[in-house]
């Protein structure tokens, strides 16, 4: 089984963000970056499938500036076999551009499975995997939290509101991975040493013209300060009045 995993380099979401001078991107100074967590689950899923089959190849792709090679290396140190870096000045916001570049690379790769994380928290689009499936004309299952492969077919579990859904899909397929499928392994020291020697090719990403661009970014408005309306039972009528008339939640 030949498996591709597409991974994104994302900033640590606990950081305090600043908007850079151009007004349309984040100031990356001082931010820490790592592999998008759902993408790490996708890498883990690929590795587990390969280990179970006892053969196969796991190829990791990432699109973006040279720094994304570090993200690819992390996936290689977890155990993936080789990496492909699609070079671009920055990671575009437009999911379609990204998907087009990935699909151009994946098209002739004869992959049985192409895995993505469900979403990345920095752009919260969650569309790249699905668009790649469309462009490659193959099956697509999103938000997979359980996975079985047998006889050239797959079964995936999806969490719905109050229910679980099981779907069967044909190969080749694109899956986007949700929480619950697995826990990503830590790269072992041996894995980190081995990653250094694994092949990592870099070529320009065929992005094309973006169809969606960011016009402006703004920080969320400051929350208005809290208000203490009084103490004990005496404060209740005023509180109710404010909740009805000002907050309009009652």
């Amino acid at each position, binding site marked *: 089984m030949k498996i591709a995993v597409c991974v994104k380099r994302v900033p640590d979401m606990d950081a305090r963000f600043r908007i850079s001078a151009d007004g349309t991107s984040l100031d990356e100074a001082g931010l820490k970056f*790592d592999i998008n967590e759902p993408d790490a689950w996708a890498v883990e899923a690929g590795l587990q499938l390969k280990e179970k089959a006892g053969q196969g190849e796991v190829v990791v792709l990432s699109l973006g500036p040279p720094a994304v090679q*570090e993200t690819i*290396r*992390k996936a290689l*140190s977890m155990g993936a076999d080789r990496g492909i870096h699609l070079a671009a000045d920055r990671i575009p916001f437009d999911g379609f551009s990204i998907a087009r570049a990935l699909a151009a690379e994946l098209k002739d790769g004869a992959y049985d499975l192409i895995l993505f994380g469900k979403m990345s928290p920095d752009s919260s689009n969650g569309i790249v995997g699905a668009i790649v499936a469309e462009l490659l004309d193959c099956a697509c299952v999103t938000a997979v939290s359980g996975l079985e492969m047998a006889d050239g077919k797959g079964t995936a579990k999806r969490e719905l509101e109050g229910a679980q859904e099981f779907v069967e899909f044909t190969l080749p397929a694109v899956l986007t991975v949700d929480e619950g499928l697995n826990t990503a392994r*830590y*790269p*072992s*020291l*041996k894995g*980190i*040493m081995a*990653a*250094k020697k694994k092949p990592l090719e870099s070529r320009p990403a065929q992005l094309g013209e973006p169809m969606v661009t960011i016009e402006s970014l703004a920080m969320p408005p400051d929350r208005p300060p809290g208000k203490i309306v009084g103490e004990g039972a005496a404060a209740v009528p005023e509180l109710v009045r404010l909740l009805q008339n000002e907050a309009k939640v009652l």
Partner: protein
Amino acid sequence: MDDSLYFGEQHLAVRNMVRDFAREEIAPTAAKYDESGEFPWENVRKMVDLGLLGIPWPEELGGSGLDLLAYVSVIHEMAKVDASHAITISAHTTLGTSPIFNFGTQAQRERFVPLLASGKVLAGFGLTEPSAGSDAGGTRTTAVKKDGRYVLNGSKVFITHGGVGEVFVVTAVTTPGVGTKGISSFILTKETADRAKADAAGFGHDDSLPNTPGFTSGKKEDKLGWRASDTRSLNFEDAEVPEENLLGEEGQGFLNFMQTLDAGRIGMAALALGIAEGAYEEALRYASERRQFGQAISNFQGVSFPLADMATEIEAGKHLVYHAAWLAEHKKPFTKQAAIAKLFCSELAMRTTIKAVQIHGGYGYTKDYPVERMMRDAKICEIGEGTSEVQRMVIARQILREMRD
């Protein structure tokens, strides 16, 4: 300290992994093991799987094939979260495995290092005796050669991994009356005292290691800190060791363990630095969240100045530790720098953890916050692998010799 001073891409990959691992896997269980004093077999199993018990040894011998800087950064990162887990790596690697790697014959290396570097079994180093602590040259344990075997009698105290471990390097007097020149080292093996837990965890015992008759471990010490680390006495009653388990030449034991301790000090310095930095990070976070007098307590100079002092001293400690490690890695003399780093960082760990508890107020005095554990864990850094007084003796000896030369 800028990372590029000592670290390449791989060092950073290792550090990032260990940072995540320590925060996600070790931190949530540290208080539990501190409370119970049990050896954390399950956590150590995970450390074994990641290759953390054989960091600096070559891959051919089952190690991870990294260098001393990577090793030191792992100890540093682990100790930020929990000192007991960090000392497990350090005692096993620098005290237990390194003498065999450095002074062993080809046969001894091939026999023992793969078992230790892969983390299959745990190792320890038996030097301290009831009447030979700081004065480690005052070893009383004897080894008498008889029919191709050495017969050991005596005892060791405070040996890290004394119970859980299976392979030990111990010192004993082979030629009485000639002082330190009469001390030799031996490799002794026995079955782990925690066999059931080792089996459940899937490591910690190897059938190929003979149980040396007359070699036993005593009861576990109930300690102020490092409570999840296994510290016990080792006893030798006519313990018979085959001749081929002599490590290095007869009479070389003292010189060899002095070298082992030299290098060990860098690990201990990194461990102390980690405790200090872990406590500092806790205090920094707490001070910016805790409000008194209508504002964050970090607004008060009485709180922010100690934080500034901690940050300053920790920065200095990093330069001392990584520079000493760099010297050792590059085979340059490092005895003085290692002792300086160990002295400075262990006293730093004590000062910093005391301040961190202070900044936490009453909450810092309870087990709801990790700083009281860090304060207890810090103290031993001023005692183990040479007390602070011994470090001053080592440093004084070096600087006075430098002056004379």
